[in-house]
């Protein structure tokens, strides 16, 4: 069995094999980190949607991405409710205002989200728990990860938002995504006190919930049929595709982290190849012996491939552990929502297998040099 032979060869030289595993560990870790960054930006853009409960999103056809959402008349939501599959259609208001301490100081830009606290829009325990607080007049909840520029976010602090005195009713933990440096959450009535100039019938996002068993794609078509052409309707998968496409193609970040990913892939192959080629060079006498006792080239190739996959498999586990630790570190340092999904894990595993196979094939060249007559 080539696999057994490969395992014995690796175990025979524990020190060298450990060194090789270390190299491949780093190569896999590099791919984990770069892939993490690549998906973290669109994930950041989706963070707030991911914590909202809805089946369909209706918005203006000027909608670009969450932070440039455009506005539409509230009457459109009433029209949406007439569709048979729709059980509820709730408005979400978004606005940017200046935040200043009641005693003066810096005027910092804050994003404000206005909702009906009773509509169950946010599936965030911190927010659900403080729904009653949102109903108090002139009160907001603030996101705990708002930047330090906003000062201490303790409850009962009085701040000026959009020229209106507001009380911080409490803090919730969700994350600001890419909506701004900080987020305040308010009831509809409080929202429009902070934006007195804004016509009260303008909505940014309409969150539509469907009756149990309704098909989202068909309900979306029904909505498109009754809403005017200045509106658009997204199912959740369509919204994800739209936001991810925005972040990866309309901003520089997709290209930057994409190229980082490509470089990490090439570097990974280089490291694996160096390691394997070194390994083979050192084991040339063993390979020559195997040849001399009658094993075919294919058999030797199978051993090299097995060695490559064995080392990679052994290196993968600690690389995964280290990647999780580094993700946690970056999450706390940068507020990027760096998490490891099953799809990402699968992608790294796949990339790693391709790297292992590519470098094994590259190093088969050194194997051909194994000449029994020369070794002895």
């Amino acid at each position: 069995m080539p696999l057994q032979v490969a395992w014995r060869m690796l175990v025979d030289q524990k020190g060298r094999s450990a060194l090789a595993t270390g190299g491949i560990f780093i190569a896999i870790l590099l791919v984990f980190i770069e892939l993490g960054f690549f998906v973290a930006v669109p994930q950041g853009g989706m963070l707030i949607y991911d914590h909202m409960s809805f089946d369909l999103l209706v918005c203006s056809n000027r909608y670009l991405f969450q932070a440039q959402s455009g506005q539409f008349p509230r009457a459109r939501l009433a029209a949406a409710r007439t569709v048979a599959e729709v059980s509820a259609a709730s408005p979400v208001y978004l606005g940017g205002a200046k935040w200043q301490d009641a005693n003066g100081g810096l005027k910092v830009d804050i994003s404000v989200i206005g909702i009906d606290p009773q509509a169950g829009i946010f599936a965030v325990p911190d927010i659900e728990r403080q729904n009653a607080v949102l109903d108090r007049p002139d009160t907001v909840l603030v996101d705990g990860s708002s930047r330090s520029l906003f000062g201490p976010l303790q409850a009962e602090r009085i701040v000026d938002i959009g020229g209106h005195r507001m009380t911080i009713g409490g803090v919730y933990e969700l994350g600001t995504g890419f909506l701004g440096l900080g987020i305040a959450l308010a009831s509809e009535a409080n929202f429009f006190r902070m934006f007195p100039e804004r016509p009260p019938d303008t909505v940014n996002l309409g969150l539509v919930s469907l009756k149990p068993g309704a098909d989202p794609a068909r309900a979306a078509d029904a909505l498109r049929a009754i809403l005017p052409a200045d509106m658009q309707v997204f199912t959740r998968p369509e919204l994800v595709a739209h936001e991810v496409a925005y972040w990866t193609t309309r901003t520089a970040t997709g290209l930057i982290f994409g190229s980082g990913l490509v470089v990490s892939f090439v570097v990974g192959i280089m490291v694996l190849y160096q390691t394997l080629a070194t390994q083979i060079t050192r084991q040339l006498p063993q390979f020559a012996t195997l040849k001399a006792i009658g094993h075919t080239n294919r058999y030797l190739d199978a051993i090299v491939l097995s060695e490559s996959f064995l080392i990679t498999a052994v290196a993968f586990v600690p690389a995964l552990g280290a990647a999780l630790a580094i993700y946690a570190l970056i999450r706390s340092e940068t507020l990027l929502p760096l998490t490891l999904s099953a799809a990402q894990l699968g992608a790294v595993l796949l990339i790693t297998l391709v790297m292992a196979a590519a470098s094994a094939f590259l190093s088969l060249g050194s194997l051909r040099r194994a000449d029994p007559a020369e070794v002895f």
Partner: protein
Amino acid sequence: MPLALRNLLANKGRLVRSSAGIGFAVLLMLVQLGFERGFFDASLATVRQLDGDLVIISKSNYRFASADPFPRDYLRAAAKVAGVASVSPLYAAWQSFSWKDPAGDQSYLVQAFAFDPAHPAFLLPGVTADAARLKEEDSVIVDRRARRFLGMVSGTGETEINGRKVHIVGGFALGPDFMSDGTVMMSERSFAALLPGNRLSAADLPVEFGMVKIRPGEDLSSVQQAVGAALPHDVRVLTRPQLIAFERDFQADVSSAGPIFWMGTMVGFVVGMLISYQIIYTDLSDQLPQYATLKGMGYENSYLVRAVLAQAALSALAGYAPAWLACLVVYRVIGAVSLLPLHMTWELTLLSFGLTLGMCLLSAVLAVRRVIAADPAEIF
């Protein structure tokens, strides 16, 4: 020929392999370092192009790109200060100018600046050249390096801003940053007309920045103090370098780019160290008999260690040079596509070469123990 160089050149195939291995690690570091610098430079590009010795700005403002205007009267008070040659207003908006792509229907928020066409507030060559044409009402000049989907590349034609028709009468090269995809500039009069919900004339509109030029031969910091003293306490007066530092501090505080790309650079360093350790270790193992022979002939350990370190430094150089050249191409291509200012500088070159040398020497020090342990008696 010194021993180290001869060792390096002895096996051409191995030299290519090791240079490629080290080179890719170098490329990884250079690309990460370049991105870090590029992100930072992009966010400072607009501030660096401001034309003024001193800039008046609201005291409550926390960053350059944040609307926090002050009354225009302040500029009149500043103009009366001894030593001041001229004071001109710079209006700005980041969240209220919606630019329609001339070739399509979609509109996008853009960064907007407005000034007196006789006193363009920017040093950008395109702005100074085309400013006179902005006297025409509803004419704008645009950033030709803005993101492509805005359709600003040509610098001609007409489109709509906030639903009102405007003529594009020229362009400049600035580039997007992480807040705005593109920039338009216009006269104060056009700005007042285009600003949504505005009923004030340009003369009454609060200004974002006051651009102060001082008379030749005047002392900058004493004029700065005098202007500050002549103005109310809700504004402050910064020199240009102070304004750039103000913006840099803000970006460094909120941006995630620093930690991300430094981590990438460090990973490149560790990868490079591993690759060069592999290379040096294998090389030393192969040539152990030769080293033992040298020892047997009476050469000191220190001589052998020096030879190994010199060889490591040479392989660093052999990997670095092609990677540096490849990086120029990578910067150019990614810079053109991402519109990020990626430039090779002396600083980047020295920093990355220092890191490369460091990783090769460090791994040589780790690997050289093998040579020190080489026992002539054991080999033969």
